[in-house]
């Protein structure tokens, strides 16, 4: 405490002389009597001639006197401009050039760097000298470029410093040199360079220019213990390197977080750093390692502390050629049952007719067929051209294939008939898998001897099978054959997709084989579009977080691989031929150099100063004000001012002190002035977050596509908020139906009764009224809220055509029915469904995490957004679209 006071210095010490007047003030305050009490007295007549002998010593209580003197003392001290830890060294009177590095490495200690800069600025400004400011990182075209600013005043410099943006690429000292030379600087200028302690490119030219123009240069950076870290990939797979520009004086403990694409932590590893380079090879379980898409140094908060990895592969779309829908197939019997289970981890399987797959601009990468194809020559032509343009046709053997053997849709020529190796009339043993051939996509798979094949279709050995066989049985007959066709592949598995012919579909190998074949299709697309551009899809910003890039950045493959990170090739994820490729900062920067190595001896190198000056003026003024308020309260208490007079003052003061109360009313004003989408806040934080983000996305979609431009999203509490402003209210119910208070119920009832629409989402994909507890609670809720009779929505309902023409209403789920009031004439006060629309609107992934990268929208998400748009339209326009006037237009849109 004492040391605190000894460290206070004063900028206007002469003002302290006013303290000498305090004793005089004490004296004056003592002799000035306080006002006498006034009493109206009825028997005044009797007092007329009376005079008191003694006089009451008219004194103010000593403690009030002391309080007032304390107020004065505080004010006098405030005028003397007290500063904590005032620098003792005489203020060098020279203008200051402040260089503030704002590259990727500045982010780690940015707050501290800003404080140091402010300290230097206030010292210089106090001496009355000019300040010049220079930043070092190149900025995008639409932002403020590197420039030498000055001369600035203290206030200007402060505001400039607060506004300096950080960029996820290194400083460009060539640009900085150019900027330095744009202005004449005073001859005696001193330079303070607030850096990061590390250099990824050499600043020689800049240093020379600086030394030439400046009287003295000091370089200031954070201590070695907290210098920025750079995370790089090492040579070996799954090995990483953490680099720092100087070795740490003591162990520096860090944690690496391994995250998947949705930002969920899958694994973390602790390590400690001493040397400049530390290699780390974490022992990550194999099933996780494929999913890791970024590695973070925890709490580092820079782009250099993030390493981006290719991560999970994109899901493929696979078509199964069949006359039947998937739902109609027989489980455990049909091949598609096994295919679907094997493919589900990394691909979406869809069943349909071949014509349908070929007709639409198909998204399918792979088509799978079992048995005979039975197609017309025209369709066959189309199929072949599809394969030649890069498709993969995977065929399994099946019954009734013989008439097809001659067609061109097999990689090898087949022998007629099939071989049955097991049965009542055969003596052969089932054949086992012998090997996967070398130099084929399947060669890395283990040849599992337990795979036995009891029936197969044989390749005709008369023709050359060389290079076409991928897997062989132990008698040398092929199990899997393949041949390239154009830029696509024809692949034939000589046994069936279901386990009737072999036990292959029951084994793990089945999954492996299908995965390799699925990968094949993606290889194909890469090689196909060799000359495209890499387009930035998610920018890693200076804080190590993803941002949507606001400018369109496209670079060639050459640049993507080799260009130094900078304005034109920032770190982040790039899209190239429908696949994402990471570009991490660490893998594209040269070795880090410490300031001592990079800078000549003529520059003095300092660490951040700890003893920063702190202006205490405001503190003393605040203290004086607080004491004054206290004095005032005491006066009120002493003079017995009736409460009726004091209350309004206290009321006004409390209004000033409670800005939140005023804010609540402002919200109502905002909701009333612009349209807001609203959801009911629930107790589940994740639910609320998903609803918030989902509705924000929906609001954006509405603004982009329709004339509705919502002002924002409101999270509302039915207990307290006014609901009348919102066209519809989304209520994600979550796991359990919440109990609402009578007040909230009444509020909701009146909202529904006066034209509001409540969209209730059970978020479980069911929304059926059965005998579960949730259904029971829902039914109770329906009673409490006076729901009208509900029915499942019909195809021709106006909701299905209020903006888009909709068939169904998918969210994260697609199966739940949508319940709606049965009357057709007016807007239904309640819609009840369970498809978890918020999750789909919010791009929520299966694992529940929010996706930080906006990847390509899936069809389901798009349909969910359309449903959201329709709901909003329906709530706002009612049954307008049900009018017969629209029918010709609708028919036109339906193509009829």
């Amino acid at each position, binding site marked *: 405490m004492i040391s605190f006071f000894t460290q206070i210095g004063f900028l206007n010490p002469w003002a302290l002389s006013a303290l000498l007047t305090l004793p005089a003030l004490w004296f004056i305050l003592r002799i000035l009597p306080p006002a*006498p*009490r006034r*009493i*109206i007295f009825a028997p*005044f007549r*009797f007092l007329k001639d*009376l005079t*008191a*002998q003694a006089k*009451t010593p008219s004194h103010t209580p000593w403690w009030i006197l002391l309080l007032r003197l304390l107020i004065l003392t505080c004010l006098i001290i405030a005028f003397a401009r007290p500063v904590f830890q005032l620098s003792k060294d005489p203020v060098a009177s020279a203008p200051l050039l402040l260089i503030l590095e704002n590259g990727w490495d500045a982010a780690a200690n940015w707050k501290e760097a800003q404080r140091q800069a402010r300290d230097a600025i206030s010292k210089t400004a106090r001496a009355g000298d000019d300040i010049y400011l220079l930043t070092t990182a190149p900025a995008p075209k639409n932002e403020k470029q590197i420039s030498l600013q000055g001369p600035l005043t203290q206030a200007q410099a402060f505001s400039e410093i607060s506004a300096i943006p950080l960029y996820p690429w290194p400083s460009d000292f060539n640009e900085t040199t150019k900027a330095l030379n744009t202005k004449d600087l005073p001859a005696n200028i001193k330079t303070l360079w607030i850096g990061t302690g590390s250099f990824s490119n050499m600043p020689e030219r800049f240093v020379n220019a600086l030394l030439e123009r400046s009287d003295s240069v000091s370089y200031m950076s954070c201590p070695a213990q907290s210098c920025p870290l750079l995370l790089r990939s090492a040579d070996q797979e799954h090995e990483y390197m953490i680099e720092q520009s100087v070795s740490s004086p003591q162990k520096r403990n860090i944690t690496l977080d391994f995250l998947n694409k949705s930002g969920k932590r899958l694994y973390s590893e602790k390590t400690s750093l001493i040397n400049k380079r530390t290699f780390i090879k974490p022992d990550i379980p194999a099933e996780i390692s494929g999913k890791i898409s970024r590695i973070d140094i925890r709490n580092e908060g820079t782009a250099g502390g993030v390493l981006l990895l290719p991560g999970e592969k994109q899901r493929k779309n696979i078509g199964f050629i069949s006359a039947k829908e998937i739902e109609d197939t027989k489980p455990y019997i049909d091949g598609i049952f096994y295919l679907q289970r094997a493919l589900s981890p990394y691909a979406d399987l869809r069943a349909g007719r071949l014509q349908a797959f070929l007709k639409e601009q198909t998204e399918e990468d792979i088509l799978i067929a079992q048995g005979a194809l039975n197609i017309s020559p025209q369709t066959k032509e189309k199929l072949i051209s599809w394969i030649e343009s890069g498709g993969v046709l995977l065929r399994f053997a099946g019954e009734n294939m013989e008439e097809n053997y001659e067609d061109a849709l097999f990689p090898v020529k087949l022998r007629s008939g099939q071989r049955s190796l097991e049965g009542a009339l055969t003596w052969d043993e089932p054949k086992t898998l012998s090997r996967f051939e070398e130099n084929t996509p399947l060669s890395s798979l283990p040849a599992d001897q337990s795979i036995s094949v009891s029936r197969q279709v044989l390749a005709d050995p008369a023709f050359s099978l060389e290079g076409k066989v991928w897997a062989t049985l132990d008698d040398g007959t092929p199990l899997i054959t393949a041949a390239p066709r154009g830029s696509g592949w024809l692949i034939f598995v000589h046994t069936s997709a279901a386990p009737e012919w072999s036990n292959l579909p029951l084994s793990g190998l089945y999954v492996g084989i299908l995965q390799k074949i699925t990968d094949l299709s993606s290889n194909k697309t890469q090689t196909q579009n060799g000359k495209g551009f890499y387009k930035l899809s998610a920018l890693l910003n200076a804080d190590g977080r993803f941002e949507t890039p606001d400018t369109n950045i496209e670079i060639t493959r050459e640049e993507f691989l080799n260009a130094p990170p900078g304005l034109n090739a920032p770190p982040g994820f790039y899209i190239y031929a429908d696949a994402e490729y990471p570009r991490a900062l660490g893998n594209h920067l040269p070795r880090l150099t410490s300031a001592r190595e990079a800078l000549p001896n003529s520059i003095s190198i300092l660490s951040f100063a700890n003893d920063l000056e702190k202006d205490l003026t405001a503190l003393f003024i605040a203290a004086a004000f607080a004491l004054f308020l206290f004095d005032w309260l005491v006066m009120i208490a002493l003079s017995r001012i009736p409460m009726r007079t004091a209350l309004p003052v206290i009321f006004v003061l409390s209004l000033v002190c409670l800005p939140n109360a005023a804010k609540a009313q402002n919200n109502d004003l905002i909701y009333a002035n612009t349209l807001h989408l609203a959801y009911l806040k629930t107790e589940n934080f994740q639910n609320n977050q998903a609803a918030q983000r989902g509705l924000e996305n929906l609001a954006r979609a509405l603004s982009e596509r329709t004339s509705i431009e919502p002002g924002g999203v409101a999270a509302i509490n039915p207990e307290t908020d006014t609901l009348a402003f919102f066209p519809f209210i989304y209520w994600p119910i979550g796991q359990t139906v919440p109990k609402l208070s009578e007040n909230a119920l009444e509020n909701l009832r009146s909202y529904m009764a006066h034209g509001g629409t409540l969209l209730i989402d059970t978020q479980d994909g069911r929304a059926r009224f059965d005998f579960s507890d949730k259904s029971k609670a829902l039914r109770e809720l329906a009673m409490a809220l006076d729901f009208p009779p509900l029915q499942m929505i019909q195809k021709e309902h106006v909701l299905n055509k209020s903006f888009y023409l909709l068939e169904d209403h998918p969210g994260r789920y697609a199966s739940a029915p949508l319940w709606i009031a049965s009357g057709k004439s007016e807007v239904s006060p309640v819609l009840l469904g369970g498809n978890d629309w918020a999750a789909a609107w919010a791009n929520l992934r299966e694992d529940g995490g929010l996706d930080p990268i906006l990847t390509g929208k899936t069809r389901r998400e798009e349909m969910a957004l359309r449903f959201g748009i329709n709901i909003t339209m329906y709530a706002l326009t009612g049954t307008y679209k049900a009018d017969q006037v629209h029918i010709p237009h609708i028919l036109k849109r339906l193509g009829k």
Partner: protein
Amino acid sequence: MWAFFHQAKETSQNAEDVLDQANRLASHAYAPGFHAARKAGQGESFWQFRRYLPDDPRRDIDWRKSARSEATIIRQREDQKAQSLHLWVDPNSGMDISYASKRPAKTHCANVLTLALGFLALRQHDIVRSIGSDSVAARSDQSMADLAHHFEQKRAPNFADLQNTPLSGSGLYVLAGDFLEPPERIEKNLKHAGHPDKKFLLLHCLDPDELTLPYTGRVLFSNSAEESSQRIDHVPDVSAAYQEKMQSHLRALEELCAAQGILYLRHLCGEDMAKTLNAAIHLLNEESRGA
């Protein structure tokens, strides 16, 4: 405008409070009839049988009684006379001063006490009137409200005007006030008091602070109209002298009442009003028995 309404409302509210309080006070008071006439007259109850005299009205003859005896007997009833109770509460603004927040002002005490006496009089089928305006009169509990409003709105004549006010009729006159004027002037104002069929009761309402002057330190005193003021630098110094003056005033007032045959009763605000009321009833009963 608003202030006017507010004041009007407040007055009316006060009047009702006062009325209510007075009614309650009266209903708990023990008050045997304080003016039976004790002679034959027009009343309801039987008084005596007497021989018929030639002047007596013939319808008074009790024929049954006469048939049983030889003489003609008449039946006489006790004479009853409706008396009037005349009330007056001093309207001067000094009565409204409240010296301590917990004590009612003198006006309040005076109003409650006089009205309570009024309620008691109504039980005797008397008429309650306000001095100075005969039109304000009550014959039932309901019409007492008029009286309460009358006093609350200070429409009674000033004390100084009382000597010029014609006091009509006989009966009991109750004057409530603080009577701080010099005794000579009080005597002048009470010149009606000597009249034989008018009985006067002086209800002297005072605040305890007015008796003792219990203040400390420097006080600036001013009169009720706030037109003159006096600063006393150390109040305890003068309080003894003040009390002396006050006591002599009270003595002078008591003597004056005794001389004029006026009943005198003092009430200190904050004290139990029921006690004062009972004392008043007692005084009046004594008086009527004595008479």
